Structures are given as structure tokens and as C-alpha cells.
């Protein structure tokens, strides 16, 4: 997607805190956000919660990226937060300890939950209207 400019933005501190300054910056300078990566029992719910904040309080189209082990956990978090269709895509577990090349292969590979290409899921999540059903399922 040569016409799309991407920028990596780190949270101001830990995922355990809300980060209004960063959300404001994304809203001011960006058109959409990909948040990740949820790969543990604490961070996966946090990633989903922050994405819903960005989507609903800042009106920034947002998709989350998680490892597949946490699909049920994040589905529960999204449902309880009132946005069960919150867009999400998955890569294999683990991401910790993997090289940049291995991680790139995850992204260019298939979503282990749906079997469809990860980037196709991401693009669809950011450009299509939620259909009321979790995009990844």
C-alpha cells in the first residue's frame, strides 16, 4: 500500500494505564490505528480496551492485533465493553523472543483463527463497516 504512510507510536508508559495524550496524537495526525500486540493474559485485555477507547472516544478506526491463544479472552473483553464486533486480527503465539524476520513472516502470513491473510484482515477491519459479527470469526 504505497499511498499509506505508517508510523510506530509507543505508549507513554505501560499498557496498564490509559494514555489520552497518545490517543490525541493519533487522532490529530492519523486516519486509523493498529494496536498491539496482545500476547498475554493482562496485555491482551488491555490492548482491546485501549482500542475501544480510541474507536469510541476519539473516533479513530482501530484494529487490534493479538496472538491466537487469546482470541476467547479478547472476545469476552470486547463483549463486556459493549463493542463485541471490535475489529481484531491474530498472529501465532509466541511473539516474544522472535526475530524481526520471523515477526514479519507472521504479518505476511495467515491469521491462525480465520485462515485468511493477516493484512487482509487488518485492511478490511479499517475500511469496512463492522457487520455485527466479530470480523475475525
Amino acid at each position, binding site marked *: 500500500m504505497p499511498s499509506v504512510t505508517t508510523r510506530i507510536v509507543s505508549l507513554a*508508559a505501560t499498557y496498564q494505564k490509559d494514555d489520552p495524550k497518545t490517543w490525541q496524537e493519533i487522532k490529530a495526525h492519523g486516519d486509523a490505528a493498529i494496536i498491539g500486540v496482545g500476547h498475554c*493474559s493482562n496485555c491482551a*485485555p488491555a490492548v482491546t480496551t485501549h482500542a475501544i477507547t480510541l474507536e469510541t472516544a476519539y473516533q479513530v478506526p482501530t484494529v487490534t492485533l493479538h496472538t491466537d491463544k487469546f482470541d476467547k479472552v479478547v472476545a*469476552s473483553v470486547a463483549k463486556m*465493553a459493549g463493542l463485541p464486533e471490535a475489529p481484531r486480527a491474530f498472529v501465532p503465539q509466541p511473539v*516474544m523472543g522472535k526475530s524481526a524476520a520471523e515477526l514479519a513472516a507472521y504479518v505476511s502470513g495467515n491469521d491462525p483463527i480465520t485462515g485468511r491473510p493477516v493484512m487482509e484482515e487488518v485492511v478490511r477491519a479499517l475500511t469496512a463497516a463492522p457487520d455485527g459479527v466479530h470480523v475475525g470469526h
Partner: protein
Amino acid sequence: MSAIDAAIAGTIGPDTEDNLQQLFLDNHWTDNLPIVLPTRQRVDAMLAATSHAPDEIVGRMQPVEFRAAWQYTVEQVAVNAVMAGARPDYFPVILALAASELSARSSSSSSSAVMVVVNGPIRRDIGMNCGVGAMGPYNHANATIGRAYGLLSQNLQGGSVPGESYMGSQGNGYGYNNLTFAENEEKSAWEPLHVQKGFKATDSTVSIFFGCRSTTFCLGLRERYWREHVRDMLAGIDANSAPCLLLDPITARQFVERGGFERKQQLIRFIHETAAMPAGRYWDLQLVQNYVYPWATFGQEPMATWLKAKPDEPIRIFPEADVNVVVVGGEANAYWRIMGAKYRKTISIDAWR
């Protein structure tokens, strides 16, 4: 409808005991051991052991941060207390645990567990064990109070099913009764834990620690190298947690004799000063990278100062305020352990009588 609500409403119809046990098992409402079926009569007997109304809200609980917190009543706690096999006179202790709002079924992928320390006169009133075998399966109150805490956590926080709502990668055997024991106050060299936390000696309390993934263990304190041996033990405690010394009374007295720790706080300071690691090695730990480093970059002390240390400069990895000491055991020998467990809170049991 959950089992708890169904049991309260009486909508689980009459059936054979085997079928009812199977029903609870199939719905993930147990710890996979047989339960005491929560009949109306048994739940009412439990409820009669507190002055609090059955529909009073006790608290809200969640398996980890950012997951939904579920609310529960005295009656819902009573159902779980019955299921665990607890006697009614244990119920105020179980209610205090529920009121902590700390889950004994954390979904942390680290497979954390909790540890419960009971202090004050209620230890004797309900026959808890603080002596020989206190941390093992040898006392009815210790066993069933701890089990009730686990059952109420999983059933009242919205479930704890592996792969769905529980993600502890390896699991933790302490979860069966959550290391529930009484402190051996009578044989301790120092003031009991709850007094240290601001309660009166005559108060009855539960204190909850979180972690219980790392343990080191030793026999006594040798005259020549005891300081070094303690340092070696502390190196085995996960750096994202905190050391809680579990001392047999014999060892507690040895710490006084060897180190001159007439006050517990002196021993705590010694532990804080002894647990050191070169900064470069400390910051390279994955647990520290994940859970300490972000707070340090956010400016939280003392971690923010540690970030300024040179790679070979030793830093004291456990803040003094995070170190705890509990005396437990029956003087069968001077064995003692350090549990990697962070203190969370102390709750009054008297408030739930």
C-alpha cells in the same frame, strides 16, 4: 443462570447425588474435586453465621485488570463456602476474603496463585493450624477456607476455564487451597503480621499475598556464611515479585541471634540491602522488561533511579516496603522458605461476623 444463582433459587431440581456432582463438574463450577452440594438448608446454616444480610453486596471481582468485574452477595459467597466443605463458624473469614475483591483465580499467564495468612484470636476460635504441617493438608479450617476462596473467586468473577477465561500457561497447585494458614503468633520473635499492617493484636484479620510462583528453601542459618546463603536464596525469587520470608519459629529466633534483628523491621531492611543484582543483568530480565521497565520510564521511583545505574552497578531489587516476614511452623526443625509473593491487603474478619 450460574450454579450459584440456580442453587439459591432452588431451580436445580432433585436428582441423584452423582448426577448433581456431575452437573457442577460439567459446568466448570468446581476445582474438579467433589464438592458438598449447596442445599438450601446448608446455605442457610452458613448464612446464620454472619450478621450480614444475604442480599448485601460483598464486592466485585475480576480475573485480571481490564476484564469485567462481577458483583456478588453474601448469599453467593455462602453457596461457595458450602461447596468447599467449610463449617459455618469459618464463614466470617471467607466473607473477609471475598470482601478483599482480590481474585484467587487470576488469569495471569504466569500461573500466579495467592497466599492467605490469618491472624488474631479467630485462629484459635475455629481451630486453625499454625504449627506442624500448617501449610499442608492437615487442618479442616485451613483446607476448606482456602478452597472456598478459590471456588468463590472462579464462580463469582465470571468463570475460570482453561483456554477461555483462565490463561495460566502451566497452572499452579497452590490454587487448591491458596496456601491458607494461620501465623504462629505465640511462638514468633516479633509482632504479628496484622499488627505490622496497622491492626490491633486482638483484631482478627486475613492478609493476602499474590504471586507464589517462586520458592527457595533452607535449613537454619549457619554461623559463617548465613548472610551469603540468604543472598543466594533471594537470587531465586522472581524480580517482579517480592520476598515473603516464611520462618519456622526456630529460624525466627536464629535471625535474632545471628543478625541481632530484635525488631522485624531490622530483618526486613537486611533483606532489602542483601538482594542486589548488577543493573545490566536486572534490566535484561524478561519479567523486568515487561512489567518494571515501563513504570521506570514513566518516572515511578525507585525504578526510575535504577535506570540511571551503570550496567555493573548493583541495585537493590526489592524495595524495603515490599519485603514481608511471617512466622509459621511447629518447631520440628529450622526449615524455612522465601516465597516470591507480593503483599496486597489485610481485611478485618471481625467486620464480617
